[in-house]
C-alpha cells in the first residue's frame, strides 16, 4: 500500500507543476538544515577543534577546503546518474536537474581551488603549484565549464541537455583516468588521511567539525539544486498555463 503510494508520488514528481510544488516545500527545509549544520560545523572548526601542531590556525581552512573538494566530485557523480536517466528514459525533469548540477559543481570546484590556493601560500610558499590534485580539480572545473557552455550554446533546451549529457558521461569515464595520470605525473599534495574503512591518520578531534561541514555541503547542494531546477522550469515553461497560474496573482 505504502509502496504503491510512493510509486505514484514518484511518477507524479516527473511532471513540471508537481515537481515545482515539491521543490517549493522541500528547499526551505534544506536551506534551514544547511544553515544549522554549517553553523555547528564552523563553530566547532573555529573554536573547539585544536590548531594543527605544525600549521597552526591556518590549517582550519581545511574544514571548507576538504568538504568543497568532496562535494565537487560527489556532484559529478550525481550529475552522471541524472545524465544516464535523461539519456535512457528521456525524462525532461532529470535533464533539467542534470544541467542544474553543473553550475553548483563548478562553484564547489572553484571554492576548493581558491581555498587551496589561499592555504598553499603560507604553507607551500606559492599560490599555485602544478600538483596532481590541484591539476585534476582544475580539469574538473574545466569539464563543468564545458558542460555549462555546451548546454548554453543550444537554443533548444532539451537538445542541449541531451548532448551535454553525452559530454557528462564522456567526462565520467575520463575523470578517473585523468586523476591517476595526473597523480602519477606530479604529487606534492598530502596523501589521503581519511578512510571509511580502517584507521584514519587524522586526529579524531578534527573529525566532528569536518563531518558537520560535509553534511552542510550536501544539504546546500540539495537546496541549491532544487531552487535552480525550479527557476529553470519557470524560465522554460514561461508560456505554459501552470506557470501563469503560479506567477500571476489570482484575479
Amino acid at each position, binding site marked *: 500500500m505504502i509502496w504503491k503510494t510512493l510509486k505514484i508520488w514518484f511518477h507524479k514528481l516527473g511532471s513540471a507543476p508537481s515537481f515545482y510544488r515539491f521543490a517549493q516545500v522541500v528547499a526551505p527545509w534544506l536551506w534551514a538544515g544547511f544553515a544549522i549544520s554549517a553553523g555547528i560545523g564552523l563553530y566547532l572548526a573555529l573554536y573547539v577543534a585544536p590548531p594543527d601542531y605544525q600549521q597552526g590556525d591556518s590549517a582550519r581552512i581545511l574544514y571548507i577546503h576538504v568538504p568543497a573538494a568532496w562535494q565537487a566530485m560527489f556532484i559529478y557523480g550525481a550529475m552522471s546518474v541524472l545524465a544516464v536517466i535523461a539519456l535512457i528514459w528521456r525524462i525532461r525533469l532529470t535533464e533539467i536537474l542534470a544541467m542544474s548540477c553543473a553550475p553548483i559543481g563548478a562553484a564547489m570546484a572553484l571554492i576548493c581551488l581558491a581555498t587551496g590556493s589561499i592555504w598553499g601560500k603560507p604553507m607551500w610558499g606559492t599560490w599555485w603549484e602544478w600538483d596532481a590534485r590541484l591539476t585534476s580539480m582544475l*580539469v574538473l572545473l574545466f569539464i563543468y565549464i564545458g558542460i555549462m557552455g555546451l548546454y548554453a550554446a543550444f537554443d533548444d533546451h532539451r537538445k542541449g541537455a541531451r548532448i*551535454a549529457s*553525452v559530454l557528462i558521461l*564522456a567526462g565520467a569515464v575520463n575523470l578517473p583516468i*585523468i586523476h591517476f595520470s595526473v597523480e602519477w605525473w606530479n604529487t606534492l599534495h598530502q596523501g589521503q588521511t581519511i578512510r571509511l574503512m580502517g584507521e584514519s591518520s587524522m586526529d579524531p578531534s578534527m573529525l566532528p567539525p569536518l563531518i558537520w561541514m560535509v553534511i552542510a555541503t550536501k544539504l546546500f547542494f540539495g537546496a541549491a539544486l532544487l531552487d535552480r531546477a525550479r527557476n529553470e522550469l519557470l524560465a522554460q515553461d514561461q508560456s505554459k498555463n501552470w506557470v501563469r497560474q503560479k506567477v500571476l496573482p489570482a484575479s
Partner: protein
Amino acid sequence: MKARIVDHKSAGERTGSPYRDRPATAISSSGESQPAGAEPASPGILAAPLALLGRDLKLAMRRLGESLLPLFFLFTVIILIPLGVGPGPNLLARMAPGMIWVAALLASLLALEHLFRPDLEDATLEQWFVGRQSAYGRVVARLVSHWLITGLPVIVFSPVAAEMLNLPREALPTLVLSLAIGTPALSLLGGLAAALTLSTRGASVLLSILIFPLIVPLVIFATGAVAMAADGMNPDAHLGLLAAFTILAATLAPFGITAALRMNVE
C-alpha cells in the same frame, strides 16, 4: 566556400553513395540474406563506410594544399617556440617532446571543425541515420580518414620537427611511436568534441574548451614516454598506458559520437 560545396557534392555522386543507387527492392527484408555475389547485390556492412572513406580521401587528395594546412601550421608553431624561448639547444631539447605534442594537438584542432559540418550543411548527415545500417560504420570511416589526413602526415614529418627542436636522437623512435599510438586517440576525442558542438553557436571556441580536459592523460603519457627515452630510461610503461588509453577511446568514443550526431540531426 561555394566551389567547395560543389566539389563535395559532385565527388559524392561520382564515387556513388550506396544508398542513392540502391534499388527499392533491396530495402525489403529479404535483402540481407542474399549471397554476396547475387544481382542486385545488397551492399555489405562495409560498403557504405568504405565508400565514404574512399570519397573523403579522394577529396583530400584533390585539395592537397588545404589538407596539408594543419601540417604547415604545426611547423609554424615549432618555429615560434625557439623564437619565443631562445635558441639554446639544451632548453629546446628539454621542451621538445611537450612542444611537438602540443603542436600536433593544435594542428588536429584546425581540421576538427569541418569534420562533420559540411555533411550537416548539405544534409548528408541525416542520410547516415535513415538507412538500414547503423551510422557507426560511417562514423568510424570518417574518423579513420581524419586520422589519415591530419595524423599520419604529423607522424611522418615529426622527425623533422624533432631535429629542429634538438630532441636527443635516442628519443626519436619513442616520439614517432608515441605519435603513432596517440594521434588516433586525438582524432577520436576530437571527433567527440566536434560531434557535440556540431550545431552550436561559436562551435570552434567551444570545441577547444571541450577537448582540453579530455586529452590530459594523452599528453601526460605521451610526453612522459618521450622524456623517459630522452633520459635513457625504458619508456614501455608510458607507451603501454598510452596504448590502453587509445584502445579505450577507440572502444567508446565512436558510440558517443554516433549518439551526439543523431541528437544533432533529429
